[in-house]
């Protein structure tokens, strides 16, 4: 997938998040979509900055560390924790949703600047 396609996917997922925000029952969907959008922003940013990217999320942390993007790798690892806790936990609360949205904001800023 090319950089612009990754950007379009990220923006589409962010529109879905904006629509879901009015319904508190969609917290898991917001986190899932935010995680997906973050992945596409990382791919977009890596292509922009390094002319390469990893086309799957497995191994992405080590890949980003290998590029020297320690902070980005840290945010991604943090995101994985928020998302995986949703699989093993009973619910995703407001604080988890806010954490996911904060991480998405940081990752988008990294990708687009």
């Amino acid at each position, binding site marked *: 997938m090319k950089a612009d396609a990754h950007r379009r996917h990220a923006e589409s997922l962010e529109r879905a998040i904006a629509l879901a925000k009015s319904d508190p029952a969609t917290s898991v969907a917001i986190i899932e979509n935010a995680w997906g959008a973050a992945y596409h922003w990382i791919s977009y940013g890596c292509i922009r900055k390094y002319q390469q990217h990893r086309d799957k999320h497995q191994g992405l942390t080590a890949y980003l560390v290998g590029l020297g993007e*320690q902070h980005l790798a*840290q945010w991604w690892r943090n995101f994985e924790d928020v998302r995986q*806790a949703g699989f*093993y936990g009973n*619910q995703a*609360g407001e604080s988890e949703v806010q954490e996911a949205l904060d991480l998405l904001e940081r990752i988008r800023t990294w990708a687009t600047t």
Partner: protein
Amino acid sequence: MKMAPIPAWLDEATSALVEETVRMLIKRHANILLAMILFGSVARHEERPLDDSCPSDVDLLAIFDTTDRLVKPYREDIFATIIDACALHLDAPREVNVLLSDRTMQTWDAMFLDNLARDGILLYARGSLPAPLAARQSLQERLEDKGVIR
């Protein structure tokens, strides 16, 4: 759950990454880290092999002495530590995921806690296990004593 070393069936490079992650978390966050548990497919020795198109990750649960589910305000420093460990072992073929938990463990699904108590491998513990795990541990030991489960 048993206290045990990192399983021998894990490849050398991933094992080194797990060991580094545990060691660095203990060193840097000793005041709040209560326990570290290996769980999931690797703990059960049911992991997908390295030649699989998607080999299993290694799952660790790190339990901290706080009641905040997101382990704030320590969260960012903890992930910085995890990344520092990762940076020393980029050759590890398996990814090591660390899930953070507060000591109440209230938001975790009961089935997840049951599986954790049954299959988990305790890599580190300071003091007794958090109540939700200790209760299950006790039940498991009683059932094992009676030969109901092995």
